[in-house]
């Protein structure tokens, strides 16, 4: 299952589905980095609203995506982590340290817009 990546101005938006396998997540990691380079994007939003489970691999992959994209000079924000999923992640011991999160797509975009302003 491929994760669609949309380009909206300087921002890329990737929307997760529920049933992502490890291979899908690895493809997304590669795809996002390629597109950030190709479009010279300044921000990435990863929308995980549909994810009903965020296990150790998914959490780690998200963190790696955010850190790789930061090294490239762009910002990542993870949006839409469901309350049950957040609860399970904490119990599991997974945190997204150093990764920006926001309630939903709209707030994620607002966060990036502010971020871009402070850099410009």
């Amino acid at each position, binding site marked *: 299952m491929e994760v669609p990546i949309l380009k909206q101005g300087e921002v890329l938006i990737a929307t997760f589905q529920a049933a992502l*396998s490890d291979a899908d997540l690895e493809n997304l990691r590669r795809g996002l980095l390629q597109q950030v380079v190709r479009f010279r994007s300044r921000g990435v939003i990863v929308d995980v609203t549909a994810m009903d489970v965020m296990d*150790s691999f998914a959490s780690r992959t998200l963190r790696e995506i955010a850190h790789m994209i930061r090294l490239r000079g762009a910002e990542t924000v993870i949006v839409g982590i469901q309350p049950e999923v957040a609860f399970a*992640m904490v*119990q*599991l011991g*997974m945190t997204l340290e150093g990764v920006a999160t926001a309630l939903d797509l709209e707030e994620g975009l607002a966060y990036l817009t502010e971020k871009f302003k402070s850099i410009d």
Partner: protein
Amino acid sequence: MSAGEIRVAINSDQDIVLARQKGRVLAIELGFSAVDATFIATAVSELARNILAYARKGEITLRAVQGSNRKGIQIVASDHGPGIPDIHQAMRDGFSTSGSLGLGLPGVRRLMDEFSITSQPGRGTTVTVKKWRQ
């Protein structure tokens, strides 16, 4: 409520997704809350992931269980892989020999109500966990 058990063979990363989906469906069928169903699905995902990482193949079995005055779900993850030489070490946060982060087993124990593990080096590992309905 279905009386039987659900077995999911774990041979690939797709099977991890399948196992956790089946775990969630059974949890909802048994009347677990959305939070508990997510805990159960996450635990299944981690257990299936351990099978794949350490033993390459194995099986997840899901079944309804009846306590003295409560209902619950039992998940058994079994493999015939190399086994765990030091279970105490494996149960510590941050320990891993597979190159993963190794948060699997202690995390699974926190997500569930009961946890037991048996492992014989060279023979395999069986992890049994239960969660009771609140």
